[in-house]
Each structure stands twice: as structure tokens, then as C-alpha cells.
């Protein structure tokens, strides 16, 4: 999956939680889940859980701590997928 596809998949995941439709429509690598999309911080857990389900990966607490932007989410997904593939 390339970066554009990953962003498109993330967009689908965050759509139910995003409260800023304009920011959601223009989602890009530097989009911040809380500051830009105005996702409630209690719903960021749902985003993490949805990403885990969608990509069949496990996001540990250290990774979750960093998952505040699209860019960080992509890095975490790519890293987990790569380490899963290496097992």
C-alpha cells in the first residue's frame, strides 16, 4: 500500500470521529487528528483500535502515544507491517 492509499484508508477510519468537515476533506500527511480534525481525545482510542483492526496489527502504548497526526499513524502502520512481514 503506498502513501496515498494509506491516507485514503485513514480518511475512511477517521470520518465518523472527525468534527471538522473541511479539514477532513483536505486530509494530508501533516493533518493533526485533534487540532485539525477536532477528533475528541476519547475517540482517538477508537481510531487506534480501528487502525489495529483494519491492518491487523497491534499498536503498543509507546506507538499510541505518538499517534497524533496522519504522518505518525502512517509511520506506525508501515513499521508494524514491516516487522510482521519479517517474522
Amino acid at each position: 500500500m503506498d502513501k496515498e492509499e494509506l491516507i485514503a484508508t485513514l480518511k475512511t477510519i477517521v470520518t465518523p470521529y472527525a468534527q471538522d468537515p473541511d479539514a477532513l476533506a483536505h486530509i494530508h500527511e501533516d493533518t493533526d487528528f485533534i487540532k485539525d480534525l477536532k477528533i475528541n481525545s476519547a475517540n482517538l482510542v477508537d481510531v487506534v483500535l480501528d487502525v489495529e483492526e483494519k491492518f491487523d496489527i497491534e499498536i503498543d502504548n509507546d506507538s499510541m502515544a505518538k499517534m497524533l497526526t496522519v504522518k505518525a499513524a502512517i509511520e506506525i502502520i508501515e513499521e508494524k507491517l514491516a516487522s510482521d512481514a519479517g517474522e
Partner: protein
Amino acid sequence: MLGNDLVDLKQAARESNWQREGYLNKICTPAEQELILSADHPSTLLWLFWTMKEASYKVVNRLSGIRSYAPHSYVCSGLIFEGHEATASVNFDSYHFFIKAVLTEEMIHSSAVLRKEQLQNMNIHYLSNSPAYMDDFNQNCREYLLSKNLAGLPQITHRRTSKTREASVSHHGRYTAILYSGLPYSGSPQSAG
């Protein structure tokens, strides 16, 4: 330094399905989960812990300038209920927070401070949640003026003495809560350092 967090319980019930698999595990320690799941009102206890963690995080974020999303690492303990209020501790890294919370049928609000005596000298204002909350506050409060500093963080200024200190603001659902410390009692000795 202080931080606060508010949850509108009706809004939370609409927005969050905390019973979904894995949810509690991501934000609560095993001990916290046990207390939640054995409580008469599990969702109340969950949102109480949540506001305690978030209020503490706001202080850490202000002191360190670092943003992170690690509710699981903010460990709640020593919870004591007294009527509609609760006190507790939150530990994160080398920080130890003292918590005072207020619970009603409609909302939960937690305040986090680093020095226990600050709990005795806090002002909390509850307003309806609106983009004009700052104007609402300033029109209704004769003693203090709420504004934002250059970094965009809320601050409170005592109108008579112009003394300024930090404030913490939390919005959720129907409510806004504004927290700030009161002025030291007049006449109390101030250390020079």
C-alpha cells in the same frame, strides 16, 4: 500549575462506546479496569478516571511542551468519594498529581494540581459551551479577566491588581469549565525566593 478536564456524560454516551473490545485496555491500568467493571455505574467511573488522566496530561503538556497520547501511563490511585466530590492521585513519570473531581448526573469535572494546598485555593466556573465562552466569562466575572497569552494558552488576570496567572479551560458537549487558582490570601507572608 493546574489542569482540568470535563466530560458531558450524555455527549460521551453518544460519542463513545467504551465497552468495545480493547477500549478499556488502551486507556486504563488493570487495577483501574477492575474498579470500573465492578462499580455500580461503570461508565461514571471510567469517565472519572479519564478526566483525571486528561487534567494531569494538560499540566505535563504545559510544563514539557510535549504532546503525547498515553492515557494508560497516567495511573490513578487512592480514589475517595465524598458526596458529589472525589479526591485521588495520578502518577505519571516523575509527576505526582492531586486530583479533586466533581460528579453530577450530567457531567464530571476533574482538576489536577502538583501541590496539595492548591486544591484549597481554586476557582472553577461552569458555563454553557459556546464559541463566545470568553466573553461570557468576562461579562459575568467582576474580579477576573480571562484571555489568551501569546502562545494561545488561557490566562486569568485579576482586574484590580493586574496579576496574571495561568488558567485551564475544558469544553465538552453542553459545558465549558474554567479553572484557575485564586490569589494568595492578602497579608499572607510571601517568600522572597
